[in-house]
């Protein structure tokens, strides 16, 4: 089988990892916490997308993405406001925060299992099984949409953070609490808004990933690989997360043939640990 085709699918999966990894990084920067529930928010987003498709079959797929993202973002906002902020305000330790987000992840995945059932769900839309031709290669029809969404979201985030008051405020709140308070930014709001934004991006990734595979309550485990991507590219850096995601996506697809598939999961983590030992702040990390 040819290399370019594999590269394409690696790229597509890599985009999904990237989007989830961007969510990790945003939350880490804004709230200083590693959100172990990020993968589960992606899963919830994918299920929300499923429900939207079922209840409004006429809605075009590209509109499902923003709707699901908005709904999941609201869920993220509520989680941040109700569960995370009190802990952050109290100055809780990293250990505590990690455990808290793990707990939220358990609630989300098992809650989803009760709502949507234990069996995997497949988006009942033609897109799930359609292919298109790129050059001489057949590829799933959702790939271009993934690439496009990825570009739109990254450009959008860049504009948000550099051009808009909200984005500047969020950045200020993340980097320098004093400046932020001078700007009149409420840190609580800024944290929750960043978390909501990250949840929305995760949901978009989930909805776009669903047609490639299926949606199930244990889909959040994919988030752990996305976390490795974020770490690989340097946690907290959005370009780093994008690159980390693509590296893991392509590496997994190409590496699958080269190395033993029995130890695939181990290799991802050994790679991450190895890179961190050589370069403790990740590929895109600055020293110190």
């Amino acid at each position, binding site marked *: 089988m040819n290399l370019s085709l594999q590269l394409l699918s690696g790229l597509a999966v890599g985009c999904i990892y990237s989007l989830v990894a961007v969510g990790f990084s945003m939350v880490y920067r804004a709230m200083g916490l590693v959100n172990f529930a990020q993968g589960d928010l992606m899963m919830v987003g994918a299920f929300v997308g499923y429900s939207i498709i079922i209840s409004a079959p006429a809605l075009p797929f590209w509109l499902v993405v923003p709707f699901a993202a908005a709904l999941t973002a609201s869920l993220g906002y509520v989680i941040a406001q109700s569960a995370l902020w009190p802990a952050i305000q109290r*100055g809780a330790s990293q250990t505590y925060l990690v455990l808290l987000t793990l707990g939220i992840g358990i609630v989300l995945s098992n809650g989803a299992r009760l709502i949507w059932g234990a069996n995997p769900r497949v988006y009942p839309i033609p897109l799930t099984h359609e292919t298109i031709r790129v050059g001489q290669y057949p590829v799933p029809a959702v790939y271009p949409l993934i690439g496009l969404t990825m570009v739109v979201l990254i450009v959008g985030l860049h504009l948000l953070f550099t051009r808009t008051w909200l984005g500047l405020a969020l950045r200020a709140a993340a980097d320098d609490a004093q400046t932020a308070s001078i700007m009149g930014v409420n840190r609580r709001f800024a944290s929750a808004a960043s978390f909501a934004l990250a949840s929305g991006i995760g949901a978009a990734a989930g909805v776009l990933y669903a047609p490639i595979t299926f949606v199930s309550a244990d889909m959040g485990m994919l988030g752990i690989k996305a976390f490795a991507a974020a770490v690989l590219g340097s946690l907290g850096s959005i370009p780093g997360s994008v690159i980390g995601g693509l590296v893991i996506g392509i590496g997994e697809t190409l590496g699958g043939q080269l190395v033993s598939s029995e130890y695939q999961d181990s290799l991802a983590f050994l790679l991450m640990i190895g890179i961190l030992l050589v370069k403790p702040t990740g590929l895109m990390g*600055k*020293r*110190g």
Partner: protein
Amino acid sequence: MRSPEVILTLREVTRRFGGLVAVNKLSMDVKEASIHGLIGPNGAGKSTAFDLISGLTTVSTGEICFRGEAITHMAPEARVASGVCRTFQTPKLFDEMTVLDVVATGRHLHNSVGLWGSMFSIGRKRREEAKTVSAAREFLEIVGLLAKEDAPVADLSYGDRRLVEIARALATEPSLLLLDEVTSGLNPVETATVGDLLRNQVRQGLTIVLVEHDMKFVMGLCERITVMNYGSVIADGSPDQIATDPNVIAAYLGSPKDGQRSRRALRSEQLV
């Protein structure tokens, strides 16, 4: 030549963070049993200098000598063992402990019980522990907080937290104490108490380096003052010399042209 009573020497110590030079060729000598001030505007590199001396940050180039021995690459805990101890700009305590426990952590190196002893020894552990506790009490008494020994440190006022941190540092029985902005957040009465306490300790042989913003406090207490700006030393001398140094005045209050007015401002700050 180093004079015999110099306890701490920094030779062209430099620390870079990426492209930024936080401390640039910092050299200074601190005399034994004196109070040495390290001042400068915000971001001058004073706290980084403390991190370098205490070992929490590694030196890029240069050398740090303590009692004539190079400690440049020594682990922070080893520096404490040899007699260098510090406090932090905002007090770093152990928030779930009581006041007595926090100060007792300062006795860590003076307690000979190890991991196994802690689990298996009966008599020695009890004796060592009693020594630790009574020593911790002595240092609490020095800062006047003995009455609050059972209080959780989380419940203390900001000023008391400072005092607990000082007691904890003193409990390590250092010969050199680095105090980072020890008066910030204290009221005038507390500041005066701390001043007396420090003078008293110096009289008993302790050497102190102060990073400080309160000019009155610094000028009144220090024998010698080093002034930093943008990572480099811009002046070094007695309080009087510093107060009249045009570079210092410029650094604190803008351009050298305004020298006269600035000097007055510096003086008036002293009078506050």
